[in-house]
């Protein structure tokens, strides 16, 4: 279940879900089965870090440092975003 992934959980894009830059529209898109999701800038920064190796904790740490943002807020946002996508089967946790 996707309720409460721990900070040790490793988010990744499942088979059949692809993050790609669309040259026609000049925007990033997350493609899944009959699904199309247009990430905003923050979502894109999170998705780019879902490489199947980084833990949620590491992603939060990286984002907090890169954008000089409060760690607690970043952790809350990252978690909410990933859980939302997991409900749509666009992200899974290893």
């Amino acid at each position: 279940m996707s309720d409460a992934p721990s900070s040790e959980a490793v988010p990744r894009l499942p088979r059949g879900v692809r993050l790609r830059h669309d040259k026609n529209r000049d925007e990033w898109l997350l493609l899944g089965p009959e699904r199309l999701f247009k990430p905003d800038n923050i979502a894109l920064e999170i998705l780019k870090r879902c490489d199947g190796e980084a833990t949620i904790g590491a992603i939060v740490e990286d984002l907090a440092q890169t954008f000089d943002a409060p760690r607690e807020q970043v952790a809350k946002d990252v978690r909410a975003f990933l859980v939302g996508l997991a409900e749509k089967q666009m992200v899974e946790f290893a």
Partner: protein
Amino acid sequence: MNEGTQDIPAPLGLLAELTHRCPLQCPYCSNPVNLERRSGELDTAEWKRVFGEAADLGVLHVHLSGGEPTARPDLEDLVAECREVGLYSNLITAGVSTDEERLERLVEAGLDHVQLSMQGPDAQINDFVAGMRGAYEKKLRTAKAVGRLGLPLTLNAVIHRHNIARVGEMIDLALALGARRVEIAHVQYYGWALRNRASLMPNRAQINAAMQVVESAREDLKGRLVIDAVVPDYYARFPKPCMGGWGRQSLNVTPNGKVLPCHAAETIAGLTFETVREQSLADIWYRSEAFNRFRGTDWMPEPCRSCERKEIDWGGCRCQALAFAGDASATDPACHRSPLHGHMLAVAEADAKEEEAFVYRSFANAGAP
């Protein structure tokens, strides 16, 4: 966008009907009643060109469909081309004619997703609706092979009065087969389904019960199974946003290369559909008369024109308007604001009481509608 005009968005999805050949005979098939023979089909090079043009045009998802797309021996080549040009490929299959080795070759070629049709949750109902003995067992084998190969699976369950009471079992089957997603698709009455409407139409009580089952399953299975539903519009208050709007998001290419805004568009007399054998997809999408005929909202009559929902449902379905009003630009009778809405409901209620036998979809039964 590269070639477009400011007010015509690039399409997102392409339905590639590679062939009309199919081992199943489902009486609700979305193919036209006039089926295309093998000799008329686009060849490998032509389909590859279509996929290249689609990617350039901005298409993201390609749905490899039919008929049964695996009837094409060049399917591996076509999937590889989709991957090559950056298209997300979705195989829409009956799953009765593909062994694991073939699936493996398709995966190696770059297939992204499999959508498997299911006619019912056990062999008896499945094989009766599909008109093919042994189909159910073969489908289960295909589903398991897809799982073993690690590919995401969607189960597509087309719902009508012969299986509507078993929607819950269809959802359970999707879970048991490891599907990530299930489509509960109430029959849309076009093509073969329109011909068989009196043997397929459920009544309102059956529909309400099925929709409740779906709603509660959606809540219970959140995070485990995505449930998408196509609503039965004969009993609706508002029309569906058919295809997301005419010429707005999607296009279909038929086995012989005609480019259509939707499955049933050829039923609209007076519209001429261009073919990829003579024009580019971009020319057809942006400039053909057929795609521009019902695009946007300018073509709308009242009560659509002043309706606050006109950019929600885009006027509903033109083919349904034609079928009921004899005029493809009329308000979709699924809308309660259409003067024909009561008539449409009465037709549904009368059909739901009929006991007609299926006219199975086959080349033998095909003919002028």
